[in-house]
C-alpha cells in the first residue's frame, strides 16, 4: 500500500536524506552550545530585552525562513527522480538495470548486418545496461511466437511471455505482480503504432502502478528502406504523456575510420561528437533531445566519415497530433509507407486497393460518405468511376483535403476531365522522362504554411531525384509546392474551403522518383495532415444497424478453403460471429453492442467503434464511453489524464524541470542563513568569554 514510498528509501535516497538532516543537526547542536552564564542580576537586561526582542524575533523569522526554504529546496531537488518518473520523461543516462522487453511479432525475421533484430535488441539492451554498469535482466514477450529460436541469443535472466499486445500487457502485469521484482524498462518494438495505441491505456496504467517503470519504443516502422550504418532510431511518441521517451540509439558498422556524429533537432545541432572507432567501437548513443510534447519537430542524424564519402543521414520527426487524423487511402502499395502509411498519427487508416462501384457504395454507406475523413489520398485513378469523382469534388468543396497521385496506370484523361479541369487546377500532359532530374523547391515555398519545413530542411531532399513525371499546364491560382527542372511536381490548389494536392509523379514507384523514400514525404505529409480539418471532424462512428466492410486479406487458397483468418472481438472481448465474406472484401455486422470492436488479422489489429448513428442519438450528447461496460469505463477514466491530475502532472513536471533551480536555491538559502547569523552576531571578546566560562 505504501509502495509508492519505496523510492524514498533506496540507499541513495537514504544517504541524501541524511545529508538533508545535516543542517538540522547543526541547528540543534548550535542550540545546545548556547553559553550559560551566571550573572549577578538580569534586572537591567530584562528592561532592555524587550527592546531587543524585535530584532531577535526578526532574526529568528529570517533564520526559520532560510532554513525551511533550504530544506524544501533540498527536498524538492532530491525528489527529482520521483518527479521525473511521475512525469514520465526519460533523459539520457537514466538507464535502469532491469529491462522488460516486449518483443515484436517479426523480430527475428528482419536481418540487418548479419544480426537479427532480436539479437540486435539484446545487444541494444546490453549496451544500455552497460551505461548503468549493472547487470541486466530481461523479460521477453513474444506475441504469436512460441517457437522462436531465442535461447541462444539471450542469457538465463530472460523471461518469455507470449500473446498479442493486449494479452501480453496483462501478462506483464501479472508477471510483475508474481515476481515482485522491480523491472524498470519495457522495450517495445513497434511495427504498428496503431497497435500501440490499442494498448496505450494499459501502458499508462502500468507506468502509474510502477513509478519507475519506463517504456522504450523501438520503431521498426521507420526502418525503410534499410540503412546499414545507422541501425536504430527511436522516434518520439511525443504527444502521449507519460509515454514520452527521448532515446536515440545508433549503431554503425564502419570500423575503419573515425566519424563525426551530428544530431540535428530542426536546423540546430543538438549533439555533436567525434567518434574514434579504435577506442569506442560500436556504441549506443543516447541524446537528450528536448522535444516538448505536442510540438512538431524534425531533424536528422548524420554520420560524417570524411571528405571522400557521402555523409549518411537519417531523418526523424515527431508528430504533433498522433491519433487525430482519419485517412482514406485508395490506391496500390506505396513506397511512401514510412510517412503516409505510418499510422502513428492517424486515428484511422482505411486502405483500399481500388474503389470498385460495390466497394464505393459499401464504403459510403459504412462511413457516411467521404466527408467523415480528414484526408483522402487517391494514389491510383485507374479504376475510378464518374460517381467517385463526383463525390470527391463534393468532398473537396465541402472542406476536405484530397491528395491525388499519378503513376503508370493513371487515367490522365479521366483525371483531367473529372477533377483537374472542373477545379480549374490545370491540365496534365505527356509523361516526361529524364535520367536524373534534381528536385528543386518552389520559390514561394518559404511562405507556404505546409511546406515551410521543406524550405527549412532542404537537405532532406538534396539527393532525391525524379526520373519521370507528367507535364502540367497549371492555371492561375494554383501554387507550385515542389518542382523539378522538367516542371511542377506538387501543386496545391484551394477550392473553396478545401484543398487539392496533385503529384505529377508516382511517389510510390522508385522507377519514377526516389522522393517517396526520402525524408521529405513523411515530413511533408505530416505537415499536410496537421493542417487538415480533423479538428472539427467527427469520430468514426457507424450506425449500429450498419456493417463494416474490410478488404479481404485472405489468400486465394484460404478463400477456396472457405477459411477466413479474421477474428473480431466485441467490446466485451468476446468473439464476434457476424462476419460475412464477400467478393474481395469482408463485411462485418450488423452490430448489437456499442463500443470498440477489434479486428485481429494475424499479427495486425484494427479497431473501429460502433456508436449510435447520429439520427438515433436523439440529441444526446456523444459520449466517448457510450456502450462501454461501466467497470471498464471506470478503469479507463482512471487511466485518462484529466483535470486535477493534469495540474498535478504539470506541477510534477515543473518540479522536475526546476531541479537545478532548487539546488541553486538550497545553496543560496544556506549561505543566506550563515550571513544572517553573522550579521546578528556581534564581535566576541574571546578572552572575556573564556573567563566567564571558567
Amino acid at each position: 500500500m505504501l509502495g509508492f514510498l519505496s523510492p524514498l528509501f533506496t540507499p541513495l535516497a537514504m544517504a541524501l536524506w541524511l545529508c538533508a538532516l545535516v543542517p538540522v543537526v547543526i541547528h540543534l547542536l548550535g542550540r545546545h552550545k548556547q553559553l550559560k552564564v551566571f550573572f549577578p542580576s538580569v534586572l537591567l537586561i530584562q528592561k532592555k530585552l524587550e527592546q531587543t526582542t524585535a530584532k531577535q524575533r526578526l532574526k529568528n523569522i529570517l533564520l526559520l525562513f532560510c532554513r525551511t526554504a533550504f530544506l524544501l529546496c533540498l527536498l524538492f531537488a532530491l525528489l527529482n527522480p520521483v518527479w521525473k518518473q511521475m512525469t514520465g520523461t526519460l533523459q539520457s543516462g537514466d538507464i535502469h538495470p532491469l529491462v522488460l522487453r516486449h518483443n515484436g511479432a517479426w523480430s527475428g525475421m528482419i536481418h540487418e548486418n548479419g544480426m537479427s533484430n532480436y539479437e540486435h535488441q539484446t545487444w541494444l539492451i546490453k549496451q544500455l545496461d552497460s551505461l548503468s554498469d549493472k547487470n541486466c535482466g530481461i523479460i521477453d514477450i513474444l506475441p504469436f511466437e512460441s517457437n522462436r529460436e531465442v535461447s541462444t541469443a539471450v542469457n538465463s535472466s530472460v523471461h518469455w511471455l507470449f500473446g498479442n499486445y493486449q494479452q501480453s500487457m496483462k501478462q506483464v502485469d501479472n508477471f510483475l505482480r508474481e515476481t515482485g521484482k522491480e523491472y524498470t524498462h519495457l522495450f517495445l518494438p513497434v511495427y504498428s503504432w496503431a497497435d500501440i495505441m490499442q494498448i496505450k491505456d494499459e501502458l499508462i496504467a502500468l507506468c502509474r502502478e510502477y513509478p519507475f517503470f519506463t517504456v522504450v519504443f523501438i520503431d521498426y516502422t521507420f526502418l525503410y528502406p534499410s540503412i546499414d550504418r545507422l541501425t536504430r532510431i527511436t522516434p518520439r511518441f511525443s504527444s502521449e504523456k507519460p509515454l514520452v521517451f527521448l532515446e536515440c540509439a545508433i549503431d554503425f558498422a564502419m570500423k575503419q575510420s573515425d566519424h563525426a556524429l551530428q544530431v540535428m533537432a530542426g536546423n540546430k545541432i543538438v549533439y555533436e561528437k567525434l567518434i574514434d572507432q579504435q577506442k569506442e567501437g560500436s556504441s549506443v548513443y543516447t541524446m537528450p533531445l528536448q522535444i516538448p510534447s505536442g510540438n512538431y519537430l524534425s531533424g536528422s542524424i548524420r554520420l560524417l566519415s570524411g571528405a571522400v564519402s557521402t555523409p549518411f543521414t537519417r531523418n526523424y520527426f515527431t508528430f504533433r497530433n498522433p491519433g487525430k487524423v482519419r485517412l482514406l487511402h485508395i490506391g496500390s502499395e506505396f513506397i511512401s509507407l514510412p510517412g503516409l502509411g505510418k499510422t502513428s498519427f492517424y486515428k484511422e487508416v482505411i486502405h483500399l486497393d481500388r474503389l470498385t462501384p460495390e466497394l464505393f457504395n459499401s464504403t459510403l454507406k459504412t462511413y457516411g460518405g467521404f466527408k467523415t475523413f480528414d484526408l483522402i489520398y487517391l494514389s491510383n485513378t485507374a479504376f475510378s468511376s464518374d460517381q467517385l469523382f463526383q463525390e470527391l469534388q463534393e468532398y473537396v468543396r465541402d472542406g476536405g483535403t484530397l491528395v491525388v497521385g499519378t503513376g503508370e496506370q493513371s487515367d490522365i484523361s479521366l483525371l483531367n476531365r473529372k477533377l483537374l479541369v472542373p477545379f480549374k487546377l490545370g491540365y496534365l500532359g505527356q509523361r516526361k522522362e529524364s535520367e536524373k532530374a534534381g528536385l528543386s523547391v518552389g520559390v514561394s515555398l518559404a511562405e507556404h504554411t505546409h511546406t515551410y519545413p521543406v524550405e527549412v530542411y532542404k537537405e532532406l531532399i538534396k539527393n532525391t531525384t525524379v526520373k519521370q513525371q507528367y507535364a502540367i499546364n497549371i492555371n492561375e491560382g494554383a501554387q507550385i509546392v515542389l518542382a523539378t527542372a522538367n516542371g511542377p511536381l506538387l501543386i496545391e490548389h484551394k477550392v473553396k474551403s478545401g484543398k487539392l494536392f496533385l503529384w505529377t509523379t508516382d511517389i510510390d514507384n522508385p522507377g519514377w522518383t526516389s522522393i517517396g523514400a526520402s525524408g521529405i514525404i513523411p515530413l511533408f505529409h505530416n505537415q499536410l495532415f496537421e493542417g487538415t480539418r480533423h479538428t472539427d471532424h467527427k469520430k468514426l462512428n457507424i450506425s449500429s444497424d450498419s456493417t463494416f466492410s474490410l478488404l479481404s486479406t485472405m489468400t486465394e487458397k484460404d478463400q477456396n478453403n472457405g477459411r477466413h483468418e479474421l477474428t473480431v472481438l466485441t467490446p466485451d472481448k468476446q468473439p464476434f460471429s457476424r462476419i460475412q465474406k464477400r467478393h474481395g472484401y469482408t463485411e462485418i455486422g450488423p452490430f448489437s453492442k456499442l463500443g470498440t470492436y477489434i479486428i485481429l488479422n494475424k499479427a495486425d489489429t484494427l479497431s473501429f467503434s460502433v456508436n449510435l448513428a447520429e439520427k438515433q442519438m436523439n440529441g444526446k450528447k456523444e459520449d466517448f464511453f457510450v456502450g462501454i461496460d461501466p467497470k471498464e469505463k471506470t478503469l479507463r477514466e482512471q487511466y485518462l489524464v484529466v483535470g486535477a491530475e493534469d495540474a498535478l502532472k504539470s506541477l510534477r513536471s515543473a518540479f522536475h524541470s526546476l531541479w537545478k533551480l532548487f539546488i541553486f536555491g538550497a545553496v543560496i538559502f544556506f549561505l543566506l542563513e550563515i550571513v544572517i547569523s553573522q550579521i546578528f552576531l556581534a564581535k566576541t571578546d574571546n578572552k572575556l568569554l573564556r573567563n566567564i566560562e571558567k
Partner: protein
Amino acid sequence: MKLTPYLSNEYITQIKNFQLKTKIILKGALAGWHESPFHGYSSEFSQHRNYTPGDNLRYFDWKIYAKTERAVIKQYQDETNTNIYLVLDNSASMEYKGSTSLTKLEYASVLAASLATLSFRQRDAVSLSYGAVQPDFFMPPKNSAANLQQIFTILEGMKCSGTTDLEGLFAKLAPVLKSGSMSYIFTDLWQEPDSIITGIKKLRHKSQAISLVQILTPEETDFISGREMELVDMETFKKVKVSATGLKKLYRETLEEHQHYLHAECFKLKINLINITNGEPFFRSVRRLLSSHNG
C-alpha cells in the same frame, strides 16, 4: 577566604598614610555635617595627653601647666571615639567575581577590614553587620584588639545567600545604630532603585555620615556580549537569553541611567555613593572611601 594575605604589612603601611588625613577628614566631616550644640568643643572630658607642637592651643590645659609645668592637651570623648558601622550585603549576587580573582563580597571584606584596622588605630569604635534581607549578624561598636580580630574572623567566614533587599535590611538595622555615627555599606545595589532609596532614608535618620559603596565587576559595568548566551540570575535564577547586537551598548546606557538616578537621590540625602570596581587596588579604593567625605 583568609584576609591575612591581603592585609599585609606593606598594604598596612600604605594605608597608614591615610591615618592623619583620615582623622582630619572625620573631624572635618563631623564638624561640617552636624551642627554641634557645643560650639566647637565637647562637654564630656575624657583624658589628658601630652602636648605636641601643632596642637590647638585652645584645648591646652593651662591649669595643669601652672601647677605642674606639664604641657598637656584636654581631650573630650566625642572627638576621640566615633562609631563606625560596617554593613555588608551578602546576597547571592555578591558572590560574582567575573574576570577578577575575588568575589565582590571578598573584595568588600578586604575593604571593610581595612577600614576596621584604620578605625582601631585611631581608637574609633567599629561595628560589623551583614545580611541580605535582614541582618544575619550584628556586632556592636567596640574599640579593642579583640574586637578587631573578631571582625576579621567574621569577615573571613561570611557566605553569600539570598536575594538583595536593602530596604528590609536597613529597616532592621536602623534601630540598633547609634546617632552621630558613620556607616559604610558595601553592596552591589542590584535592586530596584526606589527600594534602595527608601531603605537608605530609614538609615539616614540615625547615622549622620553614610557612605554607600557600590562594588561591581568589570563585566557588570561593561556587560558581556558577542554571542548567544543564556544569562542566569544568581539571586532569582531567572534565565534570560541574550544575543542581540547592540545589547551591550543598551545595557551600559541603562546602567548609566540607574547609577545617575542613585547618585541624584543620594546627593539629595547627603549620602556618599562610591562606585568601586572589583579588581581595583585596595589602597586606591580605601583612599576613595576616605576621601569621599572631603567632598
